[in-house]
């Protein structure tokens, strides 16, 4: 799948995250997080897994995280992907 439009999902509440997606020629993942120091590699791995599952190979993916748990990251990103690809 490919991003067709700009989309976003999630909230800036504590333990949640916001996902901002946009079409782009190459894949770019940017992560901002209040727990970036401790968890950036884990968050990145999680995001890459979801993108792979949906066969997304290009696009700008920006994450603004406030300490969300794995399943929240997956859910928010999937919601964003569905919006961006529809």
């Amino acid at each position: 799948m490919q991003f067709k439009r700009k989309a976003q999902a999630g909230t800036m509440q504590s333990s949640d995250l916001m996902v901002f997606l946009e079409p782009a020629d190459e894949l770019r993942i940017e992560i901002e997080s209040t727990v970036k120091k401790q968890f950036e590699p884990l968050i990145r791995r999680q995001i890459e897994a979801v993108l792979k599952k949906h066969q997304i190979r290009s696009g700008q993916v920006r994450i603004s995280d406030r300490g969300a748990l794995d399943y929240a990251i997956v859910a928010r990103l999937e919601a964003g992907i569905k919006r961006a690809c529809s």
Partner: protein
Amino acid sequence: MVVRLFNDRDWQQARRLIETQGLQFEENFEVLLGIFEAGELIATAARERNIFKMICIRNDHQGGPCLGELITELLNSGSYAGFHSFFVFTKPEHKFSFEQLNFTPLVNHHKICLLEYGTGLKHYLTRHQSLTKPGLNGAVIVNCNPFTLGHRYLIETAAARVDHLYVFVVREDRSVFPFDIRLRLVREGTADLPNISILDTSDYAISSVTFPAYFLKQDDDIQTLQMELDLILFAKHIAPFFQIRKRFIGTEPYCRTTRIYSETMLRVLSGFNIETIQLERQKNRNKVISAFRVREALKKEALETLRDLVPETTFQFLLSDQARELRARLLDYQRRH
């Protein structure tokens, strides 16, 4: 739940809430949001372009989820309006609350903090990475509304005194001449100078027009604060990236704002080891050349005067068909800058 405030009654409630917190209600915004509880407004926030302002939560609801909810909705509305990065100007004591929401502090001033949400500054700098040059570099920041012989003189003189000169053209469009035209005329008018790069200020020049002052006290010198913030932002983030050690500015005989700006510049930049160099303004017939005079001459169709004030490149453009609409617009334009 966060809702948009549309009607007068809600606006009055927002104004009251803001004023009871010792802040001031500003009329300039595109979106005003609020959270109600039992029919009463307990929190409010506004967005003007990519600036969040008048964020205000009633004392008994602070520290809860209100701020996150408001920011979420501001981000939603702002992203769909096409913005990528957002700014908030706030009191230093609230800096931490915004950092918790992934805002990054850009300027810490003892009265105001400026924070950014998103990676705008980082992207701005990366985008210009290829322009960075080693050496002792200088900068001028110009509006060029439009490009005159005075600008040409400032840039040429400054360029002769540094290894490389960065010419930042103010992006914000509050002038008769739109940004792309202003930029183009600067490029054309300086094409022969080998050691300059021309770039735009993006959002990283804080203008007095967009500077929100709602949280400042009446007796604060708002104009000076805005200038200080703008200069600190330049000195802390822009100058080190381009290795800028000297900033040039034309002396300003009649405009008070510009004169205060150069005095403030000298004071602020010296703290960052950046030299401020004032250059005597170029004159013609004993009067300094200014973009204001150019616009006046254009309005009166005084072509001979115009020819003395602008380089050939600007002159040709001003008379071209492409500039017809601009000439018409100029006739209704009253402001000085």
